[in-house]
């Protein structure tokens, strides 16, 4: 198999003494769509922030196209980031700019293309996400789905090697969410992009992903094909797939705290 485009080894992250990621290792291969699954608080977004170099881990390495993003120079990191397109959960469109200005921004800032070429590129990117008529609108004038698509258009403006989505379906109705899934598949087919999707929407993950990786309490407990993942007998994966609620009073942390409180009062169980 070819060298992975993203290689994560023993990634460990703590916030305020609390371990958020616990020695996570994962290889992401060129041209695949991988969905990073997990319950809220499982460490998905933290892992994403580290993959895109917005935070430094306690230990472990992340190689993107063979470069360790935590050891490389700022110039190298900038070059790597040019090959990453990120569509944030809240779209992160610049509210002071129109949709087309949002897409023009990376083209103006990071390329030497002439203005007419930038105009054409902007139109192509908008058309590829079905927003060719919405270029003049300001972000607050867009619906939730349009914002997500505009964010995708901006993320793909520089034709990145890797496209990263943070919760693409969050807050969208099922029809718009399905349209976004189609868009992700289209981008993969049309541009052979590697796509990393952070989500907890199972239907969306099964629809678009080639492989599924599951984080549970900061540890990666599975990296499987869709079929193997769906057939898993692991209790934690089954709970996620079968939408079984966690009984809060049965969780270890609640039991532990309860025991502490009782011991403080001097009573016995």
């Amino acid at each position, binding site marked *: 198999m070819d060298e992975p485009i993203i290689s994560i080894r023993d990634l460990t992250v703590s916030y305020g003494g609390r371990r958020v990621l616990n020695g996570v290792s994962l290889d992401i291969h060129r041209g695949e769509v991988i969905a990073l699954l997990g319950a809220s608080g499982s460490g998905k977004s933290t892992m994403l*922030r580290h993959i*895109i*170099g*917005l935070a430094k881990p306690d230990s472990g390495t992340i190689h993107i196209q063979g470069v360790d993003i935590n050891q490389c120079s700022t110039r190298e990191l*900038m*070059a790597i*980031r*040019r090959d*990453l397109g*990120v569509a*944030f*959960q*809240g779209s*992160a*469109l*610049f*509210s002071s700019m129109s949709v087309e200005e949002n897409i023009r*921004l*990376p083209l*103006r*800032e*990071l390329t030497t293309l002439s203005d007419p070429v930038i105009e054409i590129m902007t139109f192509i990117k908008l058309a590829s996400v079905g927003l060719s008529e919405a270029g003049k609108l300001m972000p607050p004038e867009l619906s939730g789905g349009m914002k997500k698509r505009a964010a995708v258009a*901006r993320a793909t403006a*520089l034709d990145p090697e890797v496209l990263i989505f943070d919760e693409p379906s969050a807050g969208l109705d099922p029809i718009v969410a399905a349209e976004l899934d189609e868009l992700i598949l289209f981008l993969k087919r049309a541009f052979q992009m590697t796509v990393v999707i952070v989500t907890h929407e199972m239907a969306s993950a099964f629809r678009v992903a080639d492989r599924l990786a599951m984080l549970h309490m900061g540890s990666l407990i599975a990296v499987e094909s869709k079929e193997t993942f769906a057939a898993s007998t692991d209790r934690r994966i089954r709970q996620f797939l079968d939408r079984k609620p966690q009984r809060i009073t049965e969780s270890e942390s609640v039991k532990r705290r309860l025991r502490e409180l009782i011991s403080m009062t001097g009573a016995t169980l």
Partner: protein
Amino acid sequence: MSVLGSIGAGVIGRLAYVGGLTNQFFQGISALPRVLPFVGKHGRWQAAIRQMYAIGVAALPMIAVVAACAGFILAIQSAYALSRFGAVQLVIYIVVVAFTKELGPVLTATVASGRSGSAFSAEIGTMVVTEEIDALRTMAIDPIELVLAPKYFAAMIVIPCLTVISSFVGIAAGAVFMFLKARMSFSMYFQYAMQAMSLHDVFAGLIKSLVFGTIIVHVGCIEGFRVAGGPEAVGNSATSAVVKSTILVIFADFVITTVFYMLGVD
């Protein structure tokens, strides 16, 4: 946490803040040439022009009112004291020197800190909360260059201009007082004012205004960049920006005035 631990954490936190501010200052300085017209990057100069309007033109009425009131009050209070010695004419000297060296720069900085420092912090803080700053970083675009540099460039031009206007309005308010009090004509007042004014004082005031402008922009921006959390954190950062920049402006004024005095420039 132990008392020693709390003190240590507090000291480390403050040192980290100063370090961050220093780092941001040098990054801001190095990004300034890219805001210049013709040779700078696309759109930066236009952004700086918009900031000049926001920091300067929009603040003009407020600064004029504050300076006029302060000039008139200063004239009244000094006349009250000086009239006992029959030296009311010295009011002109006091108003001119106070405004060119101290009140012009400090009043302008206080108004700019309240208006623009808080606005910078709220704007950038909102961008942090909505992940716009993260989006810039992931696009390999430096937020210092795109967001801070036009503000800094604009402040370096308009804050000295506002200081000159503020000083002029304050001195003019003294003229109104002298006309009402001693029927001194405006032309005579300004003749005396020009005699009282020295180029040294004007330069000292302008140097202070540049330092104050730097403080307001960088404190406002760093407070925005350090926002973590939701809308409440944005509000807190705006308050913090005003408080910290005002204190730093007064402290910087103290340091500059002392240094000038020691060097015999004053």
